[in-house]
């Protein structure tokens, strides 16, 4: 994207939409990849042709992500971070989806998508400097094709639609992935963006990380019916997948991204999982749920499930598990060291970057601020 817009065939008609069967999922070949539990069928697994090595990479990234999540929690508990939003339980959805996208594709994450950033090759220590309040932009979005985390729920979804629209205007074969929780699907932004994406037939994969809680609000109070089914109302297909099975998420999102790249439009993937931890470190989940609620989901741990898949393929042994866990330890340590050695920014840098071309009034305010700091510095 970001090439010039081509106006050669500017007046081409839009493909006809809204035909009788365009909202009918029955012909959806992606849905056909799944069994009744939303798990990739054996046949679809063979067809997807995902190598043992690919699956081992997914496993490795999930183990590393889980360890980094634990380290984030540790750092917060030790007073080194203001806030941490654990993503344990989301590893399969985040790693599977992020790795399914081509490196040239773009990802618009939501605040919990830390593992996606790790998959994109962004240094976890650098990401953590945001959570410690040491920087605004820890990575260049254009370099990693990964937009920054946003806080107002759902607002990144229109951005992803606009970005994908730009890809289309540019005749680019970039596809875009946008992540969000099930709570976000109640927002106006989400619904408007779903419609917009459908009308403009943009190359966008919507990934709902349905962890069944929006802070204290359970899914049944958030949504009536299935989120995946909502896509049909907008005129494009969607599926609910087992979001704890990384192989399924990977295969389905990859198929959806390929489909988008072929010009066949948006796709909604609802990855059903569970938030096994608190919403964030400021939350106490015992106020609204019990251990018994969480228990059944522990058996669906994404990492264990991936290990089982690898074992079934004879592609998992102790040496591999050991090496992965050592890598995870090492990366957690590196993240901690990066974070704790990062410089505290000068207070006056608060004035920087409000604008690309700042007005004189702001520059003046900054100069006054620095002047007021000066006597203290002399002491």
């Amino acid at each position, binding site marked *: *994207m*970001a*090439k*010039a*817009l*081509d*106006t050669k*065939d*500017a*007046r*081409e*008609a*839009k493909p006809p939409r809204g035909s009788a069967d365009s909202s009918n999922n029955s012909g959806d070949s992606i849905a056909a990849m799944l069994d009744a539990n939303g798990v990739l069928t054996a046949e679809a697994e063979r067809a997807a042709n995902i190598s043992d090595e690919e699956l081992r990479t997914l496993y490795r990234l999930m183990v590393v992500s889980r360890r980094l999540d634990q380290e984030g929690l540790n750092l917060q508990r030790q007073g080194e971070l203001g806030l941490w939003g654990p993503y344990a339980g989301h590893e399969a959805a985040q790693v599977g989806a992020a790795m399914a996208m081509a490196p040239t594709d*773009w990802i*618009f994450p939501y605040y919990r998508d830390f593992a996606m950033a790790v998959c994109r090759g962004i240094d976890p220590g650098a990401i953590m400097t945001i959570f410690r309040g040491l*920087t*605004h*932009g*820890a*990575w*260049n*979005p*254009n370099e990693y094709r990964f*937009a*920054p985390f*946003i806080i*107002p729920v759902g*607002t990144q*979804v*229109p*951005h*992803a*639609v*606009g*970005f*994908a*629209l*730009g*890809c289309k*205007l*540019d005749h680019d074969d970039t596809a875009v992935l946008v992540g969000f929780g099930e709570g976000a699907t109640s927002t*106006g*932004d989400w619904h*408007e*963006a779903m*419609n*917009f994406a459908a*009308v*403009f037939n943009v190359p966008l994969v919507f990934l709902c990380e349905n962890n069944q809680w929006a802070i204290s609000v359970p899914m049944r109070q958030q949504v009536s019916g299935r989120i995946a089914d909502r896509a049909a109302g907008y005129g494009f297909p969607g599926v609910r997948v087992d979001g704890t099975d990384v192989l399924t998420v990977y295969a389905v999102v990859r198929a959806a991204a390929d489909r988008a790249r072929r010009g066949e439009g948006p796709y909604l993937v609802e990855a059903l999982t569970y938030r096994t931890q608190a919403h964030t470190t400021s939350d106490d989940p015992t106020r609204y749920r019990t251990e018994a609620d969480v228990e059944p989901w522990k058996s669906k741990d994404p990492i264990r499930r991936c290990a089982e898949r690898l074992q079934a393929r004879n592609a998992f042994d102790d040496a591999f598990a050991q090496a992965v866990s050592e890598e995870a330890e090492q990366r957690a340590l590196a993240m901690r060291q990066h974070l704790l050695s990062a410089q505290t920014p000068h207070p006056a840098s608060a004035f*920087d*970057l*409000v*604008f*690309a*071309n700042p*007005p*004189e*009034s*702001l520059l003046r305010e900054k100069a006054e601020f620095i002047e007021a700091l000066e006597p203290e510095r002399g002491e």
Partner: protein
Amino acid sequence: MRTIAYRDALREAIREEMRRDERVYILGEDIAGYGGTYSVTKGLFEEFGAKRVKDTPLAEEVIAGAAIGSAIGGLRPIAELMTANFSLLASDQIINSLAKFHYMFGGQSKLPVVIRMPGGGGAQRGAQHSQMLETMYAHIPGLKVVMPATPYDAKGMLKSAIRDDDPVLFIEHELLYSVKGEVPDEGEEYTVPLNRGIVRREGTDVTIVTFSRMVHLSLQAAEELAKEGIQAEVIDLRSVRPIDLDLVLDSLRKTNRVVVAEEGWKYYGTGQGLAALIYEYGFDYLDAPIGHVAGKDVPMPYSKPLEQAALPTRDDIIAAVKAIVPAPAGAGAGA
């Protein structure tokens, strides 16, 4: 020089910039074949086609949000919101995303987004369709908010806004679209900066600081006042954010009196903010309290006589000036 209408000046700016830079595209409701609710985009669809002139679904949040996303991807969108009143639906995207992403992205993504919208009353559009909301946006760090009053500035500032790497809210006025004014011939390239006001009329007795449609009423008021021997200087701010305070203070040093004239509401608005800045930085030069002409403190009535009562008038400006400017020597004798 030619004389053309404000809406035509806007259209020329968009057309010239779209020809100059293929990354510029426009999106909004009814802007393609229909040519825009106020006919600003007429003919652009025919020239640039459906790829670069995008009629969107009726969804202001996503019009603004999609403009932001495409700008992150390197395009330079111009979003048209049918009126400022409906921009409230897009205000989360404008305030929480557009204004903050350059900052939050560590300066690594530029947001060259222009959002155009008309505000203002006087056309009997009722309470939900007549508001001046620039104050809301001008309050927010990270946004530039401009409100040109003439066709010349409309064209020159829109071109600057499109070329600017920062988000610009470009607020027009429903009653300005048909106003005519001199604009250089087509092909004669010019731009107008986004951070400079202009002295529309020189004077020595009082400075009227204003913007948008009130510029024209202020100039009329100044003509009337001149007949009575009061020479008013009229400053058109053109941009309400950033605000060209130096120009205002320079004028104040000469006249020692200021009237702020705006169409929007008085409380916590642009005019009050401006007055506070003048008190803060120009107090020593003031010989009288700052006069403030603003809209009445009511939702805009639909009824014509009530709407006229609610809107600030030329005579309100004259009265505000007279309240702080001593009667000229000799004036009033025999009146």
